[in-house]
C-alpha cells in the first residue's frame, strides 16, 4: 500500500438505522439519520474544507471553514454541526462560500509561520491542505501573530509540542477529553490568543497528568503536536495494518513506514477493538525491536558457568536436537517439555505445542497463561461451556451497571478503559471491587457508585455475599434461570448462598466490607438494568481463582446478564495473545479448542492429521515441571517468548528447578532472566518481523503483518519448524497461513478461519463455523454453549497464606500503564521516563508505625525470601496492605511471592503474600548475588574477546 492518510469523514458515524436522502452538489446521497452534512458529503466523496472537525470527535463548530448553503435556509451554516435531513439540497462550493472560507483561512495563516518547506509535517498537514483547498494565494494581515516564537515543549519522550504552529482548533483538548478520557489539556485564553496547556502553568507534558496515549497528536491538524520520529525520520511513504503485541485489548495499527524503517504506529480507525485509539505502549513503545541488547545470533554452551558461544543456526538446531534426543533416551520421553508464549502468534504457539505432543511424544506443554488466566479457562468452561469472555468491547456502550473486580483497566487495558469511561461519563453506574483505590474509583468526571475495598484473598466471600443479597431479597431473574439454566442446580446454589453464614453481615469481619455498602452494590447490580462484569488478574491469581471466576459466572446467570449486548462476563486478558495461546492447545490437558486430551475422538483427529500416536494422559504444568525437575524426572525445556524466572512466583524455587535441568532452550529477543540458566539461545523475532494472528480478549482474531525483515534472520515459527526438522519431523510449512489452515481443520471453533477470510473481514471473533460464518461477537445468545448454564457452589476457603506476628501485612501485586509484564520490552524504550523502578505502596499508618517515608529503601520479607525497593506512602492502599509492580528484574518481587496457587489450575497466588517491611539501606544479599550471577551468565565469548 502506498501512503495515504486514513480518510477523515469529519464527524463520527451515526448508529441510526433510519436513513435519510439528501442532495449534495446535485447528487443524491443516503446516510443514517443523525449524520452531519459534512459526513454525508464525505461519504459521497466530497471533502468539505474543515479544520476543527475530525471524525474521532464530536463536532465543535469553531473554525467556520466548513460552511455550506442549504436551499430554503438563510445564511451559511457549518456543515459539521448541521445534521443531514430528508430532502435537503446542499451546495458545498459557491463563490460566496469560497470568499468566506478564504477569509477564515487567511486569518489562520496570518498567525502561522510560513516555513512549510522545512516543516516536519510538510505534506501531512491539514492546514496546508485546506489552504490549497480554499484557494488561498496571499495573506493580507501583518505578522503580529500571537503564537509565533513560543518555546517548544519537548519533555515527552515521543512527541513535541510547538505552540507557534497552533491554530487553537482544540482538537487536542477534545481528543484528550472524549477519546482518552484523561482531561489533561485545557485551552487557555480566548480567540486567537488561546493556547493549549497540559494542566498547571508550571507543567510540561511529561510532568502533567498526560498518559502519552497520543490521541491529541493524532487529532492535531498541524505540526504543533507531532511525533519526534516524524521530525527525525520524515513523513511515511507506505503503511501496513498490524496488531499491537502488548496487551489483550488487541489494538490494530497502521505501521507507517519509510522503506524498512518504522516511522510511527497510528491506531487504525477501522480496528474493531480500538476504533482508532491506542495507549502509550502500542503507539510509541516499540523501540525495543531495534534495541542494542537484542540477540540476533544463536548461541550455545555446555554449562551455564561458561560464556555463550555464537554459532550458525544449523549448529544450534543440531545441538539442540542432539541434546533433546540424548535426554529422551537417557531419562525417558516424559523428561522433556516446553512452554508456549502468549506474546507469540497463534500459529507459533500451535507449532510449539505440536512439537511437544507430536515430536517430544508427551503432553508436557504449558503456557504463561498458567500464571494469569488459567482459572478463567477452568471457571467459564465449567459454568458456560467455553473458556472465553462472552462479549465484544463495543457491548459496553449498552451497559447500565459496570462491575469491575480485580482489574485496573486504566493501567492494564487502557484503550478499553477509555471506552468504559466514556460510557460511565454518559451515565452508567460503576461498582469497583478492589483492595486499592484504582484510578477508576475516582477520576475526572467519574466516581464509582460503590467501591468495595476488600481484604485481598476474599473475592469468593464478597461475591457469595452479593449472591446472598440477590437471592434472599428476591432480585434473581428466575425467568432467565428457568429458561437458560438447570433449575435444580440453581436451587442447590441458591440454598447455599442464602445460608446465614454467607450474609454480608456475617462475612464482614472476613471481607472487611461494610455490609450495608455490599448490600447496596448487590442491589444495584441486580436491578440497575444491563449489568456487565469485567475482571482481571485480581480475580484469577488467588488460591480460589477458579472459584471466583465461577462465582462471577453464577452472579451473571442469577441476574440474567448473559447472552445479549451490554451484559456478560468479560475477562480482561493480560498479554496480547493469552486468549489465543489458550485456544491453541497450550495447556497440558487440552488440545486446541479446549478438548480434553483423554477425549479419544478429538485425539484421533490429530493423530490422523499428524500421523502419530498421542499420549492420552495430561502432562505437567509449569510449576509441576519445576517440581519434577527438582525430583530429577524432568530434564529439558524449550521456552518460547516467556521469562519464567522473572514472571513466575517464588523465584528461588524456579531457579532451583531450572538449575536442575540438563538442557534449557530459550527462544526470545533478549537474554532474559530465564536465559541465565539456559544452554541454548535461539534469537526470536518481534511482531514487526512476522506474519500471523493474535486473538484478543474479545476472541477477536486479527492479523499481524510483517513490516520489516527479521534482524535475527527467521520468524519464530520458522525457528520452531527447523528445530522440529532437526529432531526428524517432516514439517514443511512455507507460510503461517498454512499453519492456520491446519488449525482450522483440527479446531471446530476455528473451522471458518483463514488468512484470506481475515484479510477480507479485517477480523473475526470465534467461533467461526457453519452456524456463524462471520464469527460471534456475543456468545450464548440463544443458549449456553454447554446446553444449560451450570450454577456451581463456590465455598469460601481462606488461603493458607496467613498474616501473623512475623508477617503482619498483605502484599498484592499489579501493573502500571507504561510498562508491560516483566518489562523486557518496555524497559528497553523511553517508557522508563514514567516508571524507572518498582515502588512499594504503603498506607501512611503502616509507614508511620515503622518510621518510613516516601523514597526510603524498605526491606520486604516473606517466608519465601526478601527483597528491597523504595517506598511510596499513599492511601490508595488500605491499612495492612502493601502493593508493588513487577516490571523490573532488579526488584525481584517474585522472590517474595510464594508457591501457593489456585486449587484447580495452579495459577499462582500472586495477589496475596503475607509480608513484613522494615527500613533498609540498599539491595538484599539475594539481589546482589543474583546481579553477580546474571552478569556472569550473560557473558558472550565474542564480546569478551572483542573487549580484550
Amino acid at each position, binding site marked *: 500500500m502506498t501512503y495515504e492518510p486514513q480518510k477523515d469523514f469529519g464527524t463520527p458515524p451515526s448508529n441510526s438505522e433510519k436513513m435519510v436522502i439528501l442532495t449534495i452538489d446535485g447528487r443524491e446521497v443516503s446516510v443514517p439519520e443523525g449524520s452531519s452534512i459534512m459526513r454525508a458529503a464525505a461519504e459521497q466523496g466530497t471533502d468539505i474544507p474543515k479544520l476543527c472537525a475530525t471524525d474521532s470527535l464530536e463536532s465543535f463548530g469553531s473554525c467556520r471553514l466548513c460552511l455550506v448553503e442549504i436551499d430554503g435556509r438563510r445564511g451559511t451554516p457549518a456543515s459539521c454541526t448541521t445534521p443531514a435531513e430528508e430532502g435537503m439540497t446542499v451546495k458545498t462550493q459557491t463563490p460566496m462560500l469560497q470568499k468566506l472560507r478564504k477569509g477564515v483561512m487567511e486569518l489562520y495563516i496570518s498567525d502561522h509561520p510560513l516555513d512549510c518547506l522545512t516543516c516536519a509535517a510538510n505534506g501531512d498537514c491539514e492546514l496546508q491542505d485546506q489552504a490549497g483547498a480554499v484557494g488561498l494565494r496571499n495573506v493580507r494581515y501583518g505578522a503580529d501573530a500571537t503564537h509565533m516564537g513560543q518555546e517548544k515543549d519537548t519533555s515527552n519522550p515521543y512527541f513535541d509540542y510547538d505552540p507557534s504552529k497552533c491554530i487553537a482548533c482544540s482538537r487536542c483538548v477534545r481528543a484528550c477529553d472524549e477519546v482518552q478520557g484523561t482531561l489533561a489539556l485545557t485551552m487557555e485564553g480566548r480567540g486567537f490568543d488561546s493556547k493549549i496547556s497540559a494542566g498547571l502553568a508550571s507543567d510540561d507534558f511529561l510532568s502533567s497528568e498526560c498518559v502519552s496515549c497520543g490521541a491529541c497528536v493524532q487529532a492535531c491538524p498541524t505540526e504543533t503536536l507531532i511525533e519526534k520520529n516524524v521530525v527525525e525520520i520524515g513523513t511515511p511513504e507506505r503503511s501496513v495494518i498490524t496488531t499491537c503485541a502488548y496487551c489483550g485489548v488487541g489494538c490494530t495499527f497502521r505501521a507507517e513506514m519509510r522503506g524498512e524503517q518504522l516511522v510511527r504506529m497510528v491506531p487504525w480507525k477501522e480496528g474493531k477493538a480500538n476504533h482508532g485509539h491506542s495507549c502509550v505502549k502500542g503507539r510509541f513503545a516499540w523501540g525495543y525491536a531495534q534495541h542494542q541488547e537484542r540477540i540476533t545470533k544463536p548461541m550455545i554452551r555446555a554449562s551455564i558457568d561458561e560464556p555463550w558461544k555464537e554459532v550458525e543456526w544449523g549448529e544450534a538446531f543440531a545441538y539442540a536436537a542432539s541434546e533433546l534426543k540424548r535426554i529422551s533416551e537417557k531419562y525417558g520421553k*516424559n523428561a522433556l517439555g516446553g512452554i508456549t508464549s502468549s506474546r507469540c502468534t497463534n500459529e507459533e504457539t500451535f507449532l510449539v505445542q505440536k512439537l511437544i505432543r507430536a515430536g517430544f511424544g508427551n*503432553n*508436557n506443554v504449558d503456557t504463561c497463561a498458567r500464571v494469569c488466566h488459567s482459572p478463567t479457562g477452568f471457571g467459564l468452561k465449567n459454568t458456560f461451556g467455553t473458556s472465553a469472555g462472552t462479549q465484544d468491547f463495543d457491548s459496553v456502550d449498552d451497559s447500565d451497571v459496570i462491575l469491575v473486580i480485580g482489574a485496573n483497566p486504566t493501567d492494564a487495558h487502557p484503550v478499553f478503559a477509555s471506552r468504559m469511561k466514556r460510557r460511565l461519563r454518559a451515565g452508567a453506574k460503576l461498582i469497583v471491587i478492589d483492595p486499592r483505590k484504582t484510578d477508576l474509583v475516582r477520576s475526572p468526571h467519574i466516581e464509582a457508585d460503590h467501591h468495595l475495598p476488600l481484604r485481598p484473598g476474599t473475592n469468593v466471600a464478597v461475591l457469595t455475599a452479593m449472591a446472598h443479597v440477590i437471592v434472599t431479597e428476591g432480585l434473581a431473574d428466575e425467568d432467565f434461570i428457568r429458561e437458560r439454566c438447570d433449575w435444580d442446580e440453581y436451587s442447590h446454589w441458591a440454598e*447455599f448462598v442464602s445460608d446465614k453464614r454467607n450474609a454480608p453481615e456475617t462475612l464482614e469481619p472476613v471481607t472487611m466490607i461494610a455490609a450495608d455498602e455490599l448490600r447496596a452494590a448487590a442491589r444495584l447490580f441486580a436491578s440497575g438494568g444491563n449489568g456487565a462484569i469485567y475482571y482481571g488478574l485480581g480475580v484469577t491469581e488467588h*488460591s*480460589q481463582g477458579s*472459584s471466583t471466576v465461577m462465582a462471577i459466572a453464577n452472579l451473571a446467570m442469577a441476574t440474567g446478564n448473559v447472552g445479549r449486548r451490554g451484559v456478560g462476563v468479560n475477562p480482561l486478558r493480560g498479554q496480547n495473545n493469552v486468549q489465543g495461546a489458550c485456544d491453541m492447545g497450550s495447556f*497440558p*490437558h487440552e488440545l486446541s479448542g479446549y478438548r*480434553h486430551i*483423554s477425549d479419544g475422538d478429538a485425539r484421533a483427529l490429530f493423530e490422523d492429521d499428524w500421523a502419530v500416536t498421542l499420549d492420552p*494422559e*495430561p*502432562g*505437567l*504444568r509449569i510449576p*509441576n515441571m519445576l*517440581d*519434577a525437575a*527438582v*525430583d530429577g*524426572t524432568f530434564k529439558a525445556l524449550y521456552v518460547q517468548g516467556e521469562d519464567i524466572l522473572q514472571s513466575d512466583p517464588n523465584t528461588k524455587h524456579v531457579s532451583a528447578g531450572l538449575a536442575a535441568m540438563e538442557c534449557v532452550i530459550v527462544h526470545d529477543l533478549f537474554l532474559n532472566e530465564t536465559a541465565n540458566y539456559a544452554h541454548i539461545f535461539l534469537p526470536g523475532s518481534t511482531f514487526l518481523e512476522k506474519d500471523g494472528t493474535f486473538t484478543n480478549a474479545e476472541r477477536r482474531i486479527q492479523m499481524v503483518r510483517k513490516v520489516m525483515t527479521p534482524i535475527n534472520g527467521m520468524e519464530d515459527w520458522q525457528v520452531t519448524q527447523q528445530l522440529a526438522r532437526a529432531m526428524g519431523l517432516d514439517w514443511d510449512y512455507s507460510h503461517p497461513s498454512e499453519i492456520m489452515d491446519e488449525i482450522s481443520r483440527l479446531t471446530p471453533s476455528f473451522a471458518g478461519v483463514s488468512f484470506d477470510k481475515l484479510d477480507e473481514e479485517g477480523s473475526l471473533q470465534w467461533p467461526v463455523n457453519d452456524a456463524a460464518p462471520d464469527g460471534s461477537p456475543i456468545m450464548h445468545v440463544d443458549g449456553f454453549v454447554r446446553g444449560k448454564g451450570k450454577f456451581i*457452589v463456590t*465455598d469460601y*476457603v481462606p488461603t*493458607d497464606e496467613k498474616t501473623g506476628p512475623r508477617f503482619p501485612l498483605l502484599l498484592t501485586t499489579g501493573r502500571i500503564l507504561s510498562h508491560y509484564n516483566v518489562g523486557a520490552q518496555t524497559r528497553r524504550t523511553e517508557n522508563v521516563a514514567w516508571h524507572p523502578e518498582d515502588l512499594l505502596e504503603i498506607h501512611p499508618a503502616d509507614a508511620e508505625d515503622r518510621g518510613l517515608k516516601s523514597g526510603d529503601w524498605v526491606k520486604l520479607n516473606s517466608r519465601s525470601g526478601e527483597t528491597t525497593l523504595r517506598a511510596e506512602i499513599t492511601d490508595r492502599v488500605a491499612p495492612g496492605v502493601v502493593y508493588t509492580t513487577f516490571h523490573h528484574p532488579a526488584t525481584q518481587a517474585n522472590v517474595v511471592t510464594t*508457591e501457593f*496457587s489456585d*486449587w*484447580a*489450575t*495452579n495459577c499462582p497466588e500472586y495477589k496475596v503474600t503475607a509480608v513484613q517491611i522494615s527500613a533498609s539501606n540498599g539491595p538484599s544479599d539475594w539481589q546482589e548475588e543474583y546481579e553477580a550471577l546474571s552478569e556472569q551468565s550473560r557473558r558472550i565469548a565474542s564480546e569478551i574477546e572483542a573487549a580484550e
Partner: protein
Amino acid sequence: MSDTTETLVRMANQIADNLMQESDPAAATAQHIKLYWDPRMKAKILAAQADGLNDFALKAVKILNMQ
C-alpha cells in the same frame, strides 16, 4: 516427606477443600486429579498415601488407587 511430595499433598487437600460442597467430594477430588495431573504426580500421591492428606483427599487417593 520431600518438598515436592508435600506440594502434591497440599494441592490434593486444597482440591478436596474446594469441592466440599459437591455431592460426593471424594469422587469429585479423584476426578479432578485424574483430569489434570500428570501420571508421575498421580503415582507420587498414591505412594504418599495417608501422610498429611485430609479425609476427602485421602478417600480420593483411594478411589484413584482402585482405578
